[in-house]
């Protein structure tokens, strides 16, 4: 199966019913995508398919065929959100952070705090109480506005 992974053409040999999560972690060696629950509840395994957030534990790799998949590694090392998650202590233990950052990267610039809450409702964080995550996102938007 072929798909575009973080901008590069990729071919994988996995079983078509393999979870995209496992293919990314084990065949593509991109371990930034995390497994927290295996039932689409925690959002730690969030990736973007054609720019849209999905939970990769619920996606058969076959359905990625021909699409563009973006993982946390695809945002590079210098994305404003990454810096602000770091600076605002939006990451504590860090296991939810890749998923949070990826969803945050799709939130429109004019979104209100309530919109941000709604957008992140599918990403569980047990460390922060979410407040520092909102601060990181708001700061990143101020910086790019």
């Amino acid at each position, binding site marked *: 199966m072929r798909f575009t992974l973080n901008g590069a053409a990729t071919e994988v040999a996995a079983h078509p019913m393999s979870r995209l999560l496992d293919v990314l*972690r084990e065949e593509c060696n*991109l*371990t*930034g*995508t*995390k*497994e*927290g*629950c*295996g*039932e689409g*509840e*925690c959002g*730690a395994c969030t990736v973007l398919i054609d720019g849209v957030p999905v939970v990769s534990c619920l996606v058969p790799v076959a359905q990625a065929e021909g699409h563009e998949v973006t*993982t*946390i*590694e695809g*945002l*590079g*090392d210098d994305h404003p*959100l*990454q*810096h602000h*998650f*770091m*600076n*605002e*202590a*939006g*990451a*504590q*233990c*860090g*296991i*939810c*952070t*890749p998923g949070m*950052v990826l969803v945050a990267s799709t939130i429109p610039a004019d979104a209100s705090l309530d919109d*941000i*809450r*709604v957008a*992140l*409702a*599918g*990403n*569980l*964080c*047990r*460390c*922060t*109480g*979410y*407040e*520092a995550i909102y601060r990181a996102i708001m700061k990143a938007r101020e910086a790019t506005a």
Partner: protein
Amino acid sequence: MPAVGTSVVRKDGIGKATGRTKYADDLVFPDMLHGRTIRSTIARGRVTGIRYDFDTTGFTIVDWRDIPAAGRNVVALLEDDQPYLVEQEVLHLAEPIVLLAHADRETLNAATVVIEYEREEPLFDPETSGIILKSLGIDKGNVEAGMLEADVIVEGTYRTGHQEHVYIEPNGVIAVPEEGGIAIHGSIQCPFYVEKALKSLMGDDAYIRVVQTETGGGFGGKEEYPSMISGHATLLALKSGHPVKIIYDRTEDMVATTKRHPSIVRHRTGVMKDGRIVAMDVDIVIDGGAYVTLSPVVISRGGIHAAGPYRCDNTRIRGRAMFTNTPPNGAFRGFGAPQTLFAVEAHIDRVAEALEMDPVDFRELNALRPGDTTATGQILTGDCSALDVLREAVRRTDFRARREALRGTNRGIGLALFYHGAGFTGSGELRLASKAKLALTPTGVRILVSSTEIGQGTRTMHAQIVADSMGIPYEDVEVAQPDTKKVPDSGPTVASRTCMVVGRILQRCATEMRERLGNLTPAEYFARHGALEVLKEHEPPAWIQWNDDTYSGDAYATYAWGCDVAEVEIDRDTYEVRPVKFTAVQEFGKAIHPALAKGQIEGGTAQGLGFALLERVVMRDGGMANASLTNYTIPTTLDTPEMDIVILDNPYEDGPFGAKGLGELPIDGPAPAVINAIRHLAIDVREIPATPEIVYAACASR
């Protein structure tokens, strides 16, 4: 520029935000096998037969007979009662019996092991099980005489349920054969606990190295249980000669590992008409589960905090941790105190109500002040801030006016006043004799401690303390990965002790290092003279006197203080209670890193709100029936309210730069504040989680 008191960039921030940081499940070792645990499916009985219904080619199979001759089938902790693997007797559901390993995960998962049992009647009710794991008594004055003197006596019973940690990274370790022994790489809070437990498994002379990998949350849940998983991975690795990785999925993690102890707390409080508390009689029962594990320490901390932050000359506290045939309950942020503080703070509102007193006035009158003694007889000094946090919280929320304004609406407001002892109880820190080390590097200095970074900011906060104590830039301080072959034993990363205790040792190391460097920078000194290390041991304040037999004396070196105010809204159709605004005023000496400290309070508050309202473990036949993140619901972004966090300074003389402990304090207040807000809606709930079903039942019984 000083680093302490500023929100410097956390050391591990960018690795986490870019996904580059490696956690246990991200690591692969050559020729690694995957391990799996076969567990009991009954709560109590005896194993009568084990059948392997699969082609065992390529499998490594381990049972209790594979435990090395030099070792014992005991997960060493406080008591030697818990086995790594069942020999015959099963005491709880999901108890490990057999271990399997295979190179292919799919083949591993497909293997079927049939275990035959002779069932016995399990004990599930801690109040009737009759088997006491640990009991304690705290006595001050004469409680019966106090009750006789009292104008009014108020009684009440309060209950809390299990709580699951839900660190987002489930438990997992890898055991790697090394130097004829074993190296563990894993998601671990306390590497030296694992080392001690593996010594019991492999014998004292075995080579054992324990390395903490980046850990995706702990909250106490990775304090004792990783010893069990590490032992299992070790047995498989020793038998197969291969590295073995065991990663629990969410369901296994929830069903098999520890949870917060459920509690039943009974209060009987004597008060005078003017509001003075003259007698407090408290009886605590917690459900310990099937093995002792940490229950004695949990009931201890729970008992010491049970009378709340109030002055009372006649206090009697009785506590019992009881056996049941359920998976052992264990460490969870707060460690018994959230249960007993919930009870006392819910009760205090009812006592004030019985006297027709305002809950703030009642607390103002009775709150501990410097010079007062606690239930264990500890005399408090200037580090007691009960009144300060109470007054600030009341002022900040305009509590009295707000309470009046909300009367008769669908909103209620309530508060809770609480405290939390920092560090190990009594003489515990003396016994621990924790050590910390600093070593010069060609560019600066390296911290060597076994304190783990589990998200709370250990690395960053320790580096700040060392940087300022040495007068060098924060960036020049690096932090070694906890590895029991490289770092000294700094004690476990628990009990709100990592900043106050280990940070203090590091501060002393840094001060001495600075003296030895003289006018040279670390780099200059290293270039001229080479390596230099400073190792120091904790010196608890000399005045601490504690009697373990009578449970009296100085229970903790100091306490942190908090007052939380919760405003909630009820939906009268569905009995759903949602927190809409939350204010937390907390004093923990000094915030080394204000943003991280705020993060601890916000995160602990969210976890406390889950404990209060959402997080219900459904136990059926001795096991968790709702073991998934779908059915055990922790707060999402839409379940957590706007939070106003206020940090009060009150530097503590024996803490680094004045810091006390903070990690646990924030989870003590939310549950009672929420229950008191529900009470303000004239709904009498004395049990958490106050799910809509519980609130409905309270309304229906009116």
